[in-house]
């Protein structure tokens, strides 16, 4: 279980002297084992900062993060390294987060070598398993990221995240900017994968439609705070807060036009 208590993260405003900006202020969130949670909010609402704190890429300025009882926000680099693989972050720009000089096989092998000290034979075996899990053809192994299609790149990022055998995967706007048919394909595949592996997913998005399609629980974030949480929402009308309703309006305006 990944648990964050009263997280605050501040940034210095460039050229603003000593004024600080609360990117995340006093946010508590709990991700169980298994299940899909979503955080919805617009650009600048603090979603990505929270994702970076939850995946202990950044330390919070206030509050604590626990992974199965271990306080990761207080751990040193060595201790963190041991649990690095447990929480994985998948980012928006697939091509930008893959090393352009490495082939698919070396991208997938790196964590196997560094985290699990696997031998060559075992690594090869595991790479093929990962490709199968991400529904990638086996002949992509020798290719480089730029030789893959957008959908394949996204799947490779997911395979790379799965390589560390994580308990939690955080998708930070991983699906925005994808073509609609591709997005539906990738989301559908992730739902299958989630049922298959029973790991927990945190989907961070500005798109309420994606959140409703994927998640069991939805947190709405605004100006660094979680302003509304819904468990098992059944309809867009379940949202109560005025700001959430603004987001609902955005989705519904397009729906209404389509009817």
């Amino acid at each position, binding site marked *: 279980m990944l648990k964050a208590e009263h997280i605050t993260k501040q940034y210095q405003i460039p050229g603003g002297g000593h004024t600080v900006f609360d990117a995340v202020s006093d946010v508590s969130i709990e991700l169980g084992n298994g299940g899909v949670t979503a955080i919805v909010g617009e650009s600048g609402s603090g979603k990505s900062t929270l994702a970076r704190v939850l995946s202990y890429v950044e330390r919070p300025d206030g509050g604590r993060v626990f992974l199965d009882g271990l306080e990761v926000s207080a751990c040193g680099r060595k201790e963190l390294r041991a649990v690095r693989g447990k929480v994985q972050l998948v980012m928006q720009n697939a091509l930008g987060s893959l090393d352009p000089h490495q082939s698919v096989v070396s991208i997938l092998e790196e964590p196997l070598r560094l985290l699990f000290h696997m031998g060559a034979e075992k690594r090869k075996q595991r790479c093929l398993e990962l490709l199968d899990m991400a529904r990638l053809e086996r002949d992509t192994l020798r290719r480089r990221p730029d030789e893959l299609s957008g959908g394949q790149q996204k799947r490779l990022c997911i395979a790379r995240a799965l390589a560390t055998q994580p308990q939690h995967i955080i998708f930070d706007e991983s699906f925005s900017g994808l073509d609609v048919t591709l997005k539906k394909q990738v989301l559908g595949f992730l739902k299958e994968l989630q049922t298959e592996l029973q790991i927990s997913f945190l989907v961070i998005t500005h798109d309420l439609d994606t959140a409703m399609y994927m998640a069991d629980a939805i947190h709405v974030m605004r100006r660094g705070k979680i302003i509304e949480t819904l468990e098992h929402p059944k309809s867009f009308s379940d949202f109560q807060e005025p700001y959430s309703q603004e987001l609902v309006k955005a989705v519904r305006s*397009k729906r209404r036009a*389509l009817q």
Partner: protein
Amino acid sequence: MLTVTNLSIRTKQTKETLVRSVSFSVKNGEALGLIGESGSGKSMTSKCIMRLLNPRLFDLRGSVQWNGKEMLAMKLNELDGYRGKQVSMIPQNPMTAFAPMLKLGKQMELGFSLKGHRERTQFRGRLAAALAGVNLSDAEKIINSYPHELSGGTLQRVMIALTILQRPELIIADEITTAVDAASEYLILNELEKLRRAGVSMIVVTHDFGVAARLCDRVAVMKDGEIVEEGKMREVFSDPQHEYTRQLVQASVLFQEGLC
């Protein structure tokens, strides 16, 4: 008003055909949706209409007629009154559309050939009003910012405000909401809808049927450089004929209310 007939675009170097014999027209006050996914040739078609394709790299066939004039044959110096003034394109990526070394206020003035302090002050006033219209209330801050200091969503709205100020007859909106969040998308669509009601014609390039539905009367669906289906927005959406259109329609709504 705009008639594109049998337009084909081919790269000179690899002889690859990117757009194949595309025909459509946009009448006065009408909005046409050009729907398709990455690589379908929508953006190439838009750029061709704007004469933005380098003739040394691309072979263009067919015709693009604007109010009876052939635009593909037009000399570069004759394009001045056309580009920006009559037909204006809002590009896909706002981060690369602005000059990086100029503050936004400065570069926004450039297209309006302002003379003297008075015209400049007047323009700043109109600019502030246009920015407020796309929900950017702090005009002073935006005018004094460099492009890299603002987010993509903000820059896209600045671009739309700038287009509105130019009062073109036809706006080509190339995937303008793809890079912004849902709340900004809503504001941008509202703004474009207002322009539609004011009688501005549009070509809305998008992969999102929802965006097309809010703005367009007719849509043309593109795949691999060709138009595979064309018709009234509602008819194409509710009764798609082509298999690819059907896939697009199915993917355009993810969460079905009342079904879970």
